[in-house]
């Protein structure tokens, strides 16, 4: 049960933090249309977040709510991968972060459909259509930026160079994840990794982008060892709940 709860939080935290990062953008996008599209993705991710946290909360005692899980943990208790914390330096980073996550997310949810845990499978069923849209949106933009102008090519290549070393962690199972893979509940990351690499490589080739050679990948998020950005994300995210504890909004 503890493993399951940790696993749900791990999935949910990815969505929460990426949704939070995207929602910082709302009103600041490069065009109204992209602004609306990025907000849509944020809304999808936060919607899924709520389903996961509600499920995780149901595994605890009756007093625990989705908001307790979203807002009341300390930084070391969040289990999201480091990739989703990366700042919105410019639109190239935003889209690259999104694409690297979306391809994973689509494969992940597709596998989660056949989880032995019915609740997780049900959440995945709802999420997969959204993930399909996300990957097509971010993938299209990777092509536009990669094969657009010289400037856009350089900017999105710079983002790929910076972000690629964060992708290893997506496929690096935590201890509780390993056990749940054995039990047929968690997604077998080894299975989806080669498909991931194939898909992103194909699209990057089309977008005239080059994956940097990387010997060492960054990790730590699943163990709660985050980047220095995380503290600032949480300071804003938790501001109200921390400043006005135990109130209902």
């Amino acid at each position: 049960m503890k493993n399951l709860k940790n696993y749900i939080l791990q999935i949910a935290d990815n969505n929460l933090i990426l949704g939070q990062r995207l929602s910082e953008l709302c009103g600041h996008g490069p065009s109204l249309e992209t602004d609306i599209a990025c907000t849509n993705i944020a809304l999808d991710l936060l919607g899924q977040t709520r389903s996961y946290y509600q499920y995780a909360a149901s595994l605890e005692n009756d007093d625990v709510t989705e908001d307790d899980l979203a807002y009341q943990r300390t930084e070391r208790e969040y289990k999201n991968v480091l990739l989703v914390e990366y700042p919105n330096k410019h639109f190239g980073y935003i889209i690259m972060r999104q694409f690297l996550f979306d391809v994973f997310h689509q494969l992940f949810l597709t596998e989660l459909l056949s989880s032995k845990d019915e609740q997780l499978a049900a959440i995945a069923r709802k999420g997969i259509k959204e993930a399909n849209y996300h990957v097509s949106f971010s993938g299209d933009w990777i092509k536009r930026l990669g094969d657009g102008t010289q400037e856009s090519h350089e900017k999105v290549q710079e983002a790929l160079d910076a972000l690629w070393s964060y992708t290893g962690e997506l496929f690096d199972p935590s201890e509780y994840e390993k056990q749940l893979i054995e039990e047929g509940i968690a997604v077998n990351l080894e299975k989806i990794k080669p498909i991931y690499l194939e898909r992103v490589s194909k699209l990057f080739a089309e977008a005239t982008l080059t994956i940097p050679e990387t010997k060492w990948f960054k990790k730590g998020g699943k163990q709660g060892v985050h980047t220095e950005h995380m503290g600032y994300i949480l300071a804003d995210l938790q501001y109200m709940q921390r400043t006005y504890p135990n109130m209902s909004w």
Partner: protein
Amino acid sequence: MSDKEVKDLEKIFDQRIANDEKIEPRDWMPEKYRKTHIRQISQHAHSEIVGMLPEGNWITRAPSLRRKVALLAKVQDEAGHGLYLYSACETLGISREELYEQLHSGKAKYSSIFNYPTITWADIGAIGWLVDGAAIINQVPLCSTSFGPYARAMVRVCKEESFHQRQGFEIMMKLAKGTPEQKAMAQDALNRWWWPSLMMLGPTDSESVHTEQSMKWKLKRKTNDELRQQFIDQTVPQADLIGLTIPDQDLKFNEETGHYDFGEIDWDEFWQVVKGEGPCNKERLQTRVDAWENGAWVRDAAMAYAEKQENKKDDLKEAV
């Protein structure tokens, strides 16, 4: 065209409007009608876009997931409204770029209310309740305005605005019925947003330009002061209902007129904000300009990519 011909066309045009017929983009229209509509519709579109910023300021700090999602969706709706309205405006023969240029240079205006800061979570409730409330009162008559694309856009906008207004009121109600701190937060937001909301309905009738012409074109059906009275009459009982106090010592129901009498508005503040010296005017505009300028390379890339794809298609055709 001779002056006489123009006069005749104008006569027919006026008659069509009087008959409640819709004017469509391809119909003949007087130049002044076109210009006035470009000004008003774009001003309205700009207000939606700039209006995203004060509320957007609380998305990352919303106090619960439910509120966060609702707020994000609301701000997104405003972007959508901006999109409808810019499209309606473009049918009058002006490009989106020109419209942005007018906003960014300060030539075009947007609703002054968005130059106030959102400093507590309750401000999000107050904006939904009061600002969207006043906007609806301004906008509902526009659903049957004479220019077709504007009227149709307004039908969609008003539907969503009503939803937003209820949502804002619900936030306020929840706060007003919450802990003493929450209630104080709600009252404080009402104190700060009440007067600017009244100002949203425009300068008092004696100071207002354009009114007569706008009435004829159905860009306006009531005067600013009438609309303001309607807003007050509608809102005061809502405040009573949730136990908040309108910050106006002169506010009193007048049995004779059936309306609320109210205190004097600080028009000096109104003009200060309209003239660009409100608390956030500079920041709001700068934020829009920054977003636009920082996005230039992205828009250029999309254009370059589309051209490349087009060329590829052409090459393919030639090869066939």
